[in-house]
């Protein structure tokens, strides 16, 4: 039972070829779009690579770029096939390639679906990576004289100013870390000695934050130091103060940013998947219709186009049988040298499609 049969007149075949040619060029543009999307996403991730601990999330833009390039190639091939489909002399050479093409197109669609799924699934991993990266960034904020870490201060400052966030979870993260380098601490002063002795690790801890946490929308000049001490500032109450610093944590800010980015690309990717599937289906119809027409006595007559020659179940069984034959063909060869006659009988019974050179056994 043929799957989804459709009748095609010559005119319909020509229309299908023309429409498919346009559609495949549209799909080439979509492939380029997917590639550019992947490049953009990768650039954005690389820009903040310093506050990310691992690069697992990079699999999403990498797949997008590969799929984009592959899609450009496959759809260009589809447009060439369309051009040749109306010419009976040139169409047959595409026969074998088309099987590979269908496999490649199906693979591309699966990869695109995988990308959409991954971009949601990897959110947890991204969060973990940012948590560790930001924690390290805050710890190494003061190490502006240590090679390899000397840019952490600038990175964290710019990050906090650009994303309007402070600290990892909130601004209190800065209270737990020494973010002032020892080079700028006067160890002879009483205040410094007190603070250093007040904790186990001997760190200079403050209830202060760096200037990059300051919120420009605050009506009052920024209060950075002695944040928990209400009496240190006139008309200041620590619990009620809202606008002084950024209230959001940088991890949340970055997650929101990247998730927005990936969510906004979601509809684009889904529509590209739809276009690719429609190219695949249309090309299959074109292939079968043109093949049918070429087999007729009158090439300009009506022919039938279908998706699968037999039903879905039968096609799957046939494919399975073919694959097993190929495997068996590889296995039988060494055995054939030992007992060609016994093997020949077996082979003849098992797979009539084989081109085995051994003569059929008469025994």
């Amino acid at each position, binding site marked *: 039972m043929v799957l989804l049969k459709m009748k095609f007149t010559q005119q319909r075949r020509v229309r299908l070829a023309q429409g498919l040619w346009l559609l495949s060029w549209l799909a080439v543009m979509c492939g380029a779009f997917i590639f550019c999307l992947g490049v953009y996403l990768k650039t954005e991730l690389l820009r903040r690579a310093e506050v990310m601990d691992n690069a697992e999330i990079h699999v999403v833009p990498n797949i997008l770029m590969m799929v984009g390039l592959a899609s450009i190639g496959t759809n260009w091939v589809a447009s060439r096939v369309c051009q040749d489909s109306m010419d009976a002399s040139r169409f047959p050479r595409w026969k074998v390639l088309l099987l590979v093409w269908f496999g490649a197109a199906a693979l591309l669609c699966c990869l695109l679906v995988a990308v959409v799924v991954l971009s949601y699934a990897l959110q947890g991993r991204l969060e973990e990576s940012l948590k560790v990266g930001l924690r390290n960034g805050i710890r190494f904020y003061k190490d*502006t*004289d240590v090679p390899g870490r*000397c840019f952490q*201060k*600038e990175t964290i*400052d*710019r990050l906090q*100013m650009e994303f309007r966030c402070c600290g990892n979870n909130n601004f209190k993260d800065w209270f737990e870390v020494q*973010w*002032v*380098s020892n*080079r*700028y*601490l*006067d160890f002879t*002063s009483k205040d410094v000695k007190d603070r250093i002795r007040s904790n186990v690790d001997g760190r200079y801890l403050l209830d202060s934050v*760096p*200037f*990059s946490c*300051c919120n*420009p*929308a*605050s*009506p*009052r*000049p*920024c209060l*950075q130091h002695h944040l928990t001490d209400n009496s240190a*500032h*006139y*008309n200041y109450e620590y619990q009620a103060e809202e606008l002084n610093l950024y209230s959001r944590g940088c991890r949340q800010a970055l997650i929101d940013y990247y998730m927005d980015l990936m969510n906004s690309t979601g509809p684009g990717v889904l529509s590209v998947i739809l276009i690719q599937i429609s190219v695949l289906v249309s090309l299959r119809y074109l292939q079968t219709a043109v093949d049918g027409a070429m087999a007729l006595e009158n090439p300009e007559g009506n022919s039938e186009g279908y998706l699968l020659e037999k039903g879905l179940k039968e096609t799957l069984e046939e494919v399975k049988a073919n694959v097993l034959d190929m495997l068996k063909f590889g296995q039988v060869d060494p055995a054939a040298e030992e007992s060609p006659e016994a093997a020949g009988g077996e082979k003849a019974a098992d797979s009539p499609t084989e081109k085995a050179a051994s003569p059929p056994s008469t025994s």
Partner: protein
Amino acid sequence: MALMLVKFDLKKRVKLAQTVWFMYWFAVMAGVLVLSMGLFFKIELRKRSELMDNNESHFLPNLLILMGIITCGINAFGGKVCYDSLDPTKFVKWKPMLKNFLVFCVCFNALLLVTAVLCFLMRIPLQFTLAEGLRNGMRFYKDTDTPGRCYMKRTLDLMQMEFRCCGNDNFRDWFEIQWVSNRYLDFSAKEVKDRIGSNVDGQYLMDGVPFSCCNPSSPRPCIQYQMTNNSAHYSYDHYTEDLNVWKRGCRDALLSYYGGMMNTIGALVVLVTMLEVAVTVGMQYVHSSLSTLANPEDPESESEGWILEKTVKETFTDIMAKMKAMGKGSKVEEGGEAAGATVS
């Protein structure tokens, strides 16, 4: 003796018309470009109009928008005329107005060149507007409770962070004004009373700057307050400290930003003017070649094309004579009426 005479046969005329038609479409896109540059410039000025005291001059972007629209219009018209010039029946209706159109084009090109020159020159008034606006802006930094000025603090902070600048000329401008609102000053504290008493206007002046002046590239946490007091901070010398706050003044930063923008726009308008001159010359050739057909009935006959019918000097004297004649003509009419009145 015509200026730059060229002989044309039918094939050459067709090729000329097609080339000029193609160039006209390029010129339409150039007009769109000028329009969009005018819009972009207008938006950029609007974005920072608070820093320019809200009295910045929008003359230049408005002029650019107007020129862009007119360019699009006349180039579309010219393209249509070129397209019709290949068909003698259609071209007949355009023929009479073509001369005036070309004169209008020449005047318009001159105006376009003036616009380009203006783009380079308008930097100077902008400089004064910016200086005035920034000075006032800094004065109103503390007025976050005054309606109409409550966003000045945020605007200035964001601008200093974005343009990496501090103060008007440099960071010391902040030492000369009170940028902390009185709402947050404890007037019973001795320090506050000292500072207010230390100057004539009773302002709370500090040697401190807002946080937006801080430079993130500094190796040490930002020193905002008591900047001129070396003993207030460990291992600090305010004479040699380089990276602590931004060294550049905001007037310089904004001026170089807008100046660069205007220079680019000016250069692009010059290029558009050259394109316009080229299409005007092309149209003149089309017009002259179609009006000098050797045999007016036969479209395949030869013809000549030129930029000017006579030499530059002769054309100039012709124009002067015409203008004098127009001037005398009105005088002669009055004399004629008077003579007629006396005669009759």
